[in-house]
């Protein structure tokens, strides 16, 4: 029996388990997936929790519901990968041999990287919404908050879902308008980047959206520490921002196991080829999604597109053929802009988000880089698609390669 081992049963690992179990002969290949947690979180849903739009039960399901029959599941912490001997060693000392390995261990927020962030004010006046605990605590806090300085800060990039912080402040604007207290809430957006977004045209469109909503952008703010006593953010160049409520997007890192295994960069993101997805260190190790150091968004849509490429390339490696697929960095994100509207961006390594229509040129139904009601419905519909189609590795009517059709230069 040959063995395919998948580390991580999040979006990427689950999709790959489904795809590979369909392709690999059950008499020849054993597939095993390892994860330390039993709950699958629909992470795009975390954004909706602080505003009471989703509750916990809207975003959780057991992981085992999405792993196909014929795939072994082990719930156990991973100690390290020994790439030289093709073994993965689990926390309890059990050693798993593999012929091919997929690393899908994702990324995590590490508030401890920033002095004072996880201090006395943590989950009292300082909240993250990238964890279920943080999102729930913030929902409680907002219920009775009388208003004041609301600051969203991105501690460093890369982060998961780079548009989520923008969506958060736009949701916050709508939330406080609807509650009639917007005049008592100042919203600011402090980012280490030079604008609302990294790519010029999207940054301009999104930047003016924030301006319209009276949300101030504080660019090039690189967080050094949080002063809990004086309730201030302090940057490395000694600028200060006072807050009454701080919503933080903490520093992101890959799984510490990647570092222990010597397969990552200094932030524990697994180093891999951005087109083939093969590890820089071992030819039988592949990386998918947030776990990798790929220069594209850390987002579910990217994982979904990468999964098509990885399926092809893994088969090439297994059958000893040259790689036939190349990942282009394709990313596709719905952006909630509040008041029942949304925007949509579609881009890759080389092409920045452009205006137009999607997926059908001239027709849509979704509008690129503009606010429409349809885009908002797309985002809401996506939760159903995620649970029922995407995780199960079924076909979607969107190509894994980005297309210029429908985009305006």
């Amino acid at each position, binding site marked *: 029996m040959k063995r395919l081992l998948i580390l991580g049963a999040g979006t990427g690992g689950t999709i790959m388990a489904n795809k590979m179990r369909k392709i690999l002969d059950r008499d020849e290949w054993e597939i095993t997936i390892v994860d330390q947690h039993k709950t699958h979180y629909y992470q795009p849903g975390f954004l909706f929790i602080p505003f009471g739009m989703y509750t916990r039960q809207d975003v959780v399901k057991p992981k085992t519901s999405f792993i196909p029959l014929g795939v072994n599941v082990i719930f156990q912490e991973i100690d390290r990968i020994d790439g030289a001997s093709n073994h993965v060693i689990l926390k309890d000392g059990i050693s798993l041999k593999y012929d091919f390995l997929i690393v899908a261990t994702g990324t995590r927020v590490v508030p401890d990287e920033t002095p004072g962030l996880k201090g006395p004010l943590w989950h009292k006046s300082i909240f993250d919404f990238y964890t279920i605990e943080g999102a729930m605590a913030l929902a409680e806090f907002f219920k009775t908050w009388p208003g004041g300085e609301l600051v969203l800060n991105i501690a*460093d*990039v*890369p982060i998961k879902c*780079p548009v989520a912080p923008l969506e958060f402040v736009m949701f916050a604007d709508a939330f406080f308008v609807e509650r009639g207290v917007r005049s008592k809430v100042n919203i600011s957006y402090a980012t*280490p*980047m*030079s604008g609302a*977004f*990294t*790519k010029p045209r999207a940054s301009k469109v999104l930047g003016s959206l924030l301006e319209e909503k009276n949300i101030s952008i504080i660019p*090039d703010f*690189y967080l*050094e520490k949080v002063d809990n006593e004086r309730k201030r953010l302090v940057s*490395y*160049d000694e600028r200060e921002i006072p807050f009454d409520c701080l919503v933080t997007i903490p*520093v992101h890192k890959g799984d510490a196991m990647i570092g222990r295994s010597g397969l990552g*960069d*200094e*932030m524990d993101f697994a180093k891999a080829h951005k087109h083939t997805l093969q590890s820089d260190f071992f030819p039988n190790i592949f990386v998918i999604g947030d776990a990798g*150091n*790929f*220069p*594209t*968004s850390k987002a579910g849509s990217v994982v979904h597109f990468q999964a098509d490429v990885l399926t092809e390339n893994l088969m090439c490696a297994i059958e000893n053929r040259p790689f036939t697929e190349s990942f282009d960095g394709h*990313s596709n994100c719905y952006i909630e802009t509040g008041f029942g509207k949304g925007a949509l961006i579609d*881009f890759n390594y080389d092409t920045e988000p452009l205006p137009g229509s999607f997926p059908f040129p001239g027709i849509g139904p979704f509008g690129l880089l503009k606010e429409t009601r349809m885009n908002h419905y797309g985002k809401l519909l996506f939760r159903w698609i995620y649970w029922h189609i995407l995780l199960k590795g079924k076909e979607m009517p969107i190509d894994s390669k980005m297309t210029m059709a429908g985009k305006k230069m």
Partner: protein
Amino acid sequence: MAQKIIAGITVDVNEEGYFTNPAQWTRELAKEVAKEEGIQLTDTHYAVLEFLRERFAKGENLTIRSVGNSGIIDIKGFYGLFPGAPMKKAAKVAGIPKPASCV
């Protein structure tokens, strides 16, 4: 593509003044580019520049945090060397493209 004459040598640059061909870079040119930014280069500056050029050549992400973890200098010190926007300024002086933080 634009060109610029620095210390009598013609180099290829983009509209923001970043080198488009890192191979044209020399320590002498760096000194001149730094002057335009109001920076007098020291050995520590050069160590950081070499570090960034090496990382760029290897295709690795250029981040402020990576400089902070380099062992050459901490982040605060990096701000001291290239005040304001350290990564953008350092990349310009190091003769490498402006780091596009990946979305």
